[in-house]
């Protein structure tokens, strides 16, 4: 059981405040789709419009090609996993899981049996008669998933479900959620402000800022070819340079002119910035003429095991960061030394500045 979800020109106003602005997206049946964005950008609002708790001010929500206008949350083929899980504290685990079936008038033995099956599915057998308060965070998480699956939804809506868990468990639950999604083939709409989560789990990601979608793409493209400065800054680290396009492939900054690659919609007139990822930076003692190079002074090297982070400053005092894969034959430069950082033109992206970029930096 699975269905597509489509948002057509969806806008949501709270009074004069526009929380979601003209969002268009089509999510395929059985897809694991994430909305990624900073807190307050309207992710939860989108989820609440899909589940039916609020109606969009403008636009339409379609589930499986059926327009959901005027259909209440208890009639939609969706199930939501709340940020705080919202398990019922006065019911046992199995009563929680069977709640949806109880509401549909299923008899008690069948409900109990189904609850046990679902506990198996989420790999949590033997806790049916306990209360949610007696379970650990990860176990509660699984109960919430089982409770949502019990109503056999076509679409699962997950609102930052892992944010309350500790790091180790979060990593583990990522894989778990992904596996459950593949097993059940239900469409998952996942909300998070954690880029790692979104990239690791999703088939496609929509990056949002201030109610607007910035980019919808597969995780690799979101990271490697961000649509604009906001996406680049929000997803992953960057060395950033303000400057001006001088020719179609040259970008002039206060530390030199570089050969670059242009991002979406960049023209000589647009306000832009140059972005270089730390892992795309290399070191050269004597760079050849014509390569992109910046003289830098190494301030700090932190060794993280599989890689090292090198923090530097250029002559203007700007902080630069490089990430070097651990390789004993090619050690990072020494702290205090002077060096040149170099980067390829293909890895130097000139991206559009938007209001959104300024916003991401404030965050």
């Amino acid at each position, binding site marked *: 059981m699975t269905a597509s979800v489509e948002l057509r020109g969806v806008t949501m106003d709270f009074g004069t405040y526009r929380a979601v602005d003209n969002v268009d997206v089509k999510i395929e049946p059985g897809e694991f789709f994430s909305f990624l964005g900073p807190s307050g950008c309207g992710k939860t609002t989108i989820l609440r419009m899909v589940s039916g708790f609020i109606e969009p001010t403008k636009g339409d929500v379609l589930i499986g090609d059926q327009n959901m206008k005027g259909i209440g949350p208890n009639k939609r083929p969706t199930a939501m996993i709340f940020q705080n899980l919202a398990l*019922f504290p*006065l019911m046992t685990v199995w009563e929680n899981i069977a709640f949806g079936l109880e*509401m549909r008038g299923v008899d008690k033995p069948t409900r109990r049996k189904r609850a046990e099956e679902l506990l198996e599915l989420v790999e949590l057998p033997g806790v049916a008669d306990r209360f949610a308060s007696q379970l650990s965070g990860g176990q509660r998480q699984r109960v919430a998933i089982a409770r949502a699956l019990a109503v056999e939804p076509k679409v699962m809506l997950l609102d930052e479900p892992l944010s309350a868990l500790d790091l180790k468990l979060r990593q583990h639950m990522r894989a778990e959620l992904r596996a459950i999604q593949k097993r059940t083939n239900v469409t998952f709409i996942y909300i998070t402000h954690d880029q790692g989560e979104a990239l690791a789990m999703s088939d496609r990601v929509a990056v949002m800022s201030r109610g607007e979608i910035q980019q919808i793409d597969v995780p690799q493209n979101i990271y490697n070819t961000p649509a604009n400065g906001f996406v680049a800054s929000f997803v992953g680290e960057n060395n950033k340079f303000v400057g001006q396009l001088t020719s179609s492939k040259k970008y002039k900054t206060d530390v030199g002119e570089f050969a670059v690659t242009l991002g979406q919609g960049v023209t000589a007139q647009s306000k832009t910035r140059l972005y270089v990822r730390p892992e795309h930076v290399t070191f050269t003692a004597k760079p050849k003429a014509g390569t992109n190079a910046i003289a830098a002074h190494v301030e700090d090297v932190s060794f993280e095991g599989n890689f090292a982070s090198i923090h530097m400053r250029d002559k203007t005092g700007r902080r630069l960061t490089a990430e070097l894969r651990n390789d004993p034959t090619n050690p990072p430069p020494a702290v205090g030394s002077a060096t040149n950082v170099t980067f390829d033109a293909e890895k130097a992206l000139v991206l559009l500045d938007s209001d959104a970029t300024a916003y991401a930096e404030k965050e």
Partner: protein
Amino acid sequence: MAALIRRYGTGLTGIIIALTTFWLIVLVILPYFDLFESSFRPYLPAADVGGPKDVYSLSNYITIFQNPAEFNIGLFGFTFPISVAIHMWVFVLTILFSVLTTLTSLVLCYPLAYYMAKVIDPKRLSTFLLLLVVPMWVSELLRAFAWFILLAFKGPLTIVLQNLGIITDPIHWTWGLGGFSGVIVTLVYVYILFMLFPIYNSMTSLDTNQLEAAQDLGAKSWQTHWRVVVPHCKPGIASGCVTVFMLAVGSLLVPTLLSSPSSRWFTEVIYSRMFDENDWNGGAAYAFILLFVCTIFVSLTMRLFKVGLADIAK
């Protein structure tokens, strides 16, 4: 105790404990005990008190079962007479109509509390609360009097209803068995906040996500209330019910103003034994009957609905 001494020193702690003990024993326990003791002794002329006739017995209590009288009960269109002791009858009706008062308040307060806790815009809540509380700053006597006037025979309420064409003949709101309507309406009005606030409090502690989760899982509105809201608010509901029931049963002012000789409240019987007949022993006995029966009734009801005393105190 040790903590108290550490905090306030031996002297101050001693004074605090002495005062508390004095208050508890002299002002609370002793008067009750005196009343309780005297309820088992006969009512005698001053000269005979302490004499050979002053012996302990249950006779003050037994009078409640004496003096039977005929009453007509109408049920499903039939009227049949029953013969019950007068005071017993008043007692039973008092309990019955106090229960009705409690249920009426509950039915009125549950939706109101839900509206205040979960629906209304929080910005407007304080105005709303003020509107509810301000009338309670007027004394109970005046509030009861207001209803006394409204419900008077051929009074404002009757006139309004007649003009709206809802009734033709004037109704005796405070007369006969139907005369309990005046008492109930006024008791509900006077004590309603004691029902509203415990329920409202328990509802504010209910996570709104729980309501949405229930709805999301397919619950209709009534199912959400029955399976999620009511269980969560049970302690508040119980607390409100116990308070209103006890206040209603024990109210003297309201029935004095709004009942008639044929719709008497048990407290009026106690009052008249104590002050009209000067029989304090008999009055005390009746007061204790009321106290005991109500306590047992409340405990049984709480047991029935599986609420503990500790839940209510929360």
